């Protein structure tokens, strides 16, 4: 399973889920043998509880705060025509984009994995890359070139092009693992081509399609930058306006609650109605018997369609950035050099990467090594962060700092780093989990019987073996922060610019020529490497078990 990691925050959480799904299947057979005792050591439990509390802090704060304002007041703020408009905009956009992504993602995955499409390897990479480009860059590319790209239609176009890989990735992985023998069995039982496709092929990947759709809708709900550029009003843009420009904090909180409720409904629905049937092959590897469907004459239209898809999703944003850079429109706007912004970005990202990775270690250890209900609940609760759009986390943190810490910490580096750490924690957790789950407890026990203390055994064995995986987790979080925009806009210290906020400032000022280089730098230094690193996790299980 390949899964580029994630530029924007919502993207990060999505690739998190993709990684997690693959992991839970591959780790399944071995995981049980790694569990020995049920009651975890106290230090681990305490550390994980602290992490879970901090992660859920913003959510709890919002809930407490709004219940303090009184249900009546909240209801009055929510019960307005504005909310209905936002709800209508948000829901219809989410539904349309999700359906389009499901269709495009599934069909492209089928073409790449199951047909004799020419240049399959190349397409497999090109189709996935748009996922690694921040949505706001794609929106910028389209909106800056074509004035008709705006409003609802513009948002549908841009979001679909930006997030269809979220369906493609899990579905393609599922096609790779599914048993192609079933299709042959269906044909031999008298089903035609089409009914085989709908009753067997699609059934094999329906869990993956479903999972992909959940990710797409979470991303659309959390998106901010692209909608702002396209002038399309959703909950996120409205919350941002109310909080940042009108200082209308109560309204922002009330709208945030509705947004969290929407994401929560999707996450909860995912847990309840996700198709349960197993879709993995039951027999031993049947890969050799995989006969790809021959496209025949359909090859040319299929190739043209894929070419168009890549041109629209990849060509336009990158082309636009290059175009504007070449045009070099010069509007003066307090020049901060790319290097300067890059250094700030790197500093925030490195701190968040280290904190999130370290914080994920006790939670992952408790869940993997001491598989109890408590440990699993704790791990699950950290995934609730997924229901919190970056905007809402940032809002809760800054409001908290202002209200209770007397402004202490507001718009400081520390608060921004904390927000990043919470935002990208699920990404770090999946990475850390994947690095630890294949390390048997037996290694540490062997070390202890050789005279090493619990702590030294852990450091000399488990942490050493997990080392490369932990480094990769760190890099994933680090790179994800580079492309984060929404929380950064709210929390970045005064007089400091990061790559994304500087891009945003130029973009808002219509200085496309100065914004473009930032867009290109973000794509080059964040998106591309994060794609490469996330592939590391594909090979992790094989590497870790090679020795035994």
């Amino acid at each position, binding site marked *: 399973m390949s899964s580029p990691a994630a530029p924007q925050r919502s993207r990060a959480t999505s690739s998190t889920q993709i990684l997690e799904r693959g992991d839970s299947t591959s780790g399944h057979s071995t995981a049980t043998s790694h569990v020995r005792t049920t009651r975890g050591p106290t230090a681990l439990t305490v550390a994980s509880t602290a992490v879970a509390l901090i992660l859920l802090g913003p959510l709890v704060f919002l809930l407490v705060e709004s219940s303090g304002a009184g249900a009546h007041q909240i209801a009055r703020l929510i019960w307005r025509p504005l909310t209905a408009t936002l709800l209508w905009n948000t829901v219809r956009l989410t539904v349309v984009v999700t359906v389009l992504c499901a269709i495009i993602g599934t069909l492209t995955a089928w073409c790449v994995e199951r047909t004799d499409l020419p240049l399959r390897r190349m397409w497999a990479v090109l189709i996935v890359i748009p996922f690694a480009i921040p949505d706001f860059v794609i929106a910028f590319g389209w909106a800056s070139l074509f004035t008709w790209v705006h409003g609802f239609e513009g948002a549908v176009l841009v979001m679909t092009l930006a997030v269809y890989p979220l369906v493609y990735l899990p579905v393609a992985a599922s096609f790779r693992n599914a048993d192609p023998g079933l299709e042959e069995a269906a044909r031999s039982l008298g089903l035609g081509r089409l009914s085989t496709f709908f009753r067997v092929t699609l059934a094999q990947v329906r869990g993956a399609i479903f999972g992909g759709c959940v990710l797409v809708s979470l991303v659309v709900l959390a998106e901010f930058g692209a909608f702002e550029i396209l002038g399309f009003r959703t909950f996120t843009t409205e919350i941002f306006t109310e909080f940042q420009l009108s200082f209308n904090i109560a309204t922002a909180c009330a709208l945030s609650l509705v947004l969290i409720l929407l994401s929560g409904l999707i996450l909860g629905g995912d847990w309840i109605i996700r198709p349960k049937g197993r879709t993995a092959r039951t027999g031993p590897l049947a890969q050799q018997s995989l006969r790809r469907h021959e496209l025949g004459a359909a090859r040319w239209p299929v190739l043209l369609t894929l070419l168009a898809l890549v041109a629209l999703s990849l060509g336009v944003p990158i082309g636009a950035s290059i175009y504007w850079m070449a045009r070099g429109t010069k509007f003066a706007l307090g020049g901060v050099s790319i290097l300067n912004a890059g250094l700030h970005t790197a500093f925030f990202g490195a701190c968040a990467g280290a904190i999130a990775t370290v914080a994920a270690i006790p939670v992952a250890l408790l869940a993997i090594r001491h598989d109890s209900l408590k440990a699993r609940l704790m791990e699950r609760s950290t995934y609730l962060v997924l229901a919190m759009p970056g905007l809402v986390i940032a809002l809760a943190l800054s409001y908290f700092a202002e209200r209770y810490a007397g402004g202490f910490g507001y718009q400081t580096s520390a608060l921004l780093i904390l927000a990043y750490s919470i935002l990208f924690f699920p990404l770090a957790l999946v990475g850390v989990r994947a690095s630890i789950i294949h390390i048997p407890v*037996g290694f540490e026990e062997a070390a202890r019987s050789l005279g090493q203390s619990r702590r030294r055994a852990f450091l000399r064995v488990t942490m050493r073996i997990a080392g490369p995986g932990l480094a990769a987790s760190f890099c994933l979080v680090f790179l994800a922060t580079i492309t984060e925009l929404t929380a950064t806009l709210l929390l970045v210290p005064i007089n400091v610019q990061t790559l994304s906020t500087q891009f945003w400032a130029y973009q808002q000022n219509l200085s496309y020529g100065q914004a473009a280089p930032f867009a290109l730098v973000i794509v080059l230094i964040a998106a591309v490497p994060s794609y490469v690193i996330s592939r590391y996790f594909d090979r992790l299980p094989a590497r870790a078990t090679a020795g035994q």
Partner: protein
Amino acid sequence: MTPSPANLEVTDVGKSFGDNPVLVGVNLSVAAGSFTAILGPSGSGKTTLLRIIAGFDRADKGTVRIGGDVLDGPNEFVAPERRRVGYVSQNGSLFPHLTVEENVTFGLARSLRRGDDVTALIEAIDLGALARRFPHQLSGGQQQRVALARALAVNPRFILLDEPFASLDASARSDVRSDVRQILKRVGTTAVLVTHDQDEALSMADQVAVIRDAHIVQSATPHDIYQQPIDTGVAQFVGDANLIGGHLKAGVAVTVLGTLPVMKSPTVADGRVTVLVRPEQLALSRTDDVAGVRVEILETAFHGHDSLYRVAFSANSEEHLLTVRLQSGEQFTAGDLAHLRVNGPVKVWPAP
């Protein structure tokens, strides 16, 4: 390297996982410098017992003493790293990020990692040429030897082996077994080996403890375990067993196979008994023999060094089936008729 082997006393140890009692009132004593095998079917609690001795798990009840020190008791618990008890697991658990040499020296202080002792130890396990390899570049048998050397390098008072040969293929297994046996004898460490393979237990150990349903049911020398099993279950577990009914009277058992002399000890009261006849106590011959029983050969299995026969006869209007093991010599085929004789005294238990 001068290990000081210690003895082990396990007294009344109990352990449950949830409602599932895995060990109940387990007693075991192992003399310093000896080699004991714990033999039991899989799931009988062998690993759990070893892990308690190693200190990875804590007993719910009872005490574990090594060399007189209480390591695990109602009020004491010594951490595994301070027990000086070596542990070799089923798959060796070699650290995958370290070379053979680094694995072996893992438990040593930094200053001792380059000493002659280490070189000697790596030579002793015949892996001098492989010192710089990583575990995944070794065969299963080599990995097990490294795991043993790693455990021995820190000079333990005691070493525990949890089915160390189970994951090896049959041809490698016997070689590695005798290597390990020799290394342990040379070093003189007290060793406890856990296995579900009765051949392995009987051939390697000075003492065999049979564990069944959470209890140690018998511990004795391999010879006694085989000849004098404590009950029919143990008799069947440690080898092929023919069990027949009989009547004990004045030191002889009257059975369908004739009147058989009975082992002297332990004494069993006269009356109805169950009689154990090992297949190699039976002999077949074509010549008519007055003392023997006429049997028909049903099935034969040729094993090279010996042959197994399933034979049948009827007595008292009942069909009886027996297993006979013959050293190479006279051969029989299915359908042959032969005479059956019993050699040596037999083991008897009061009939249930």
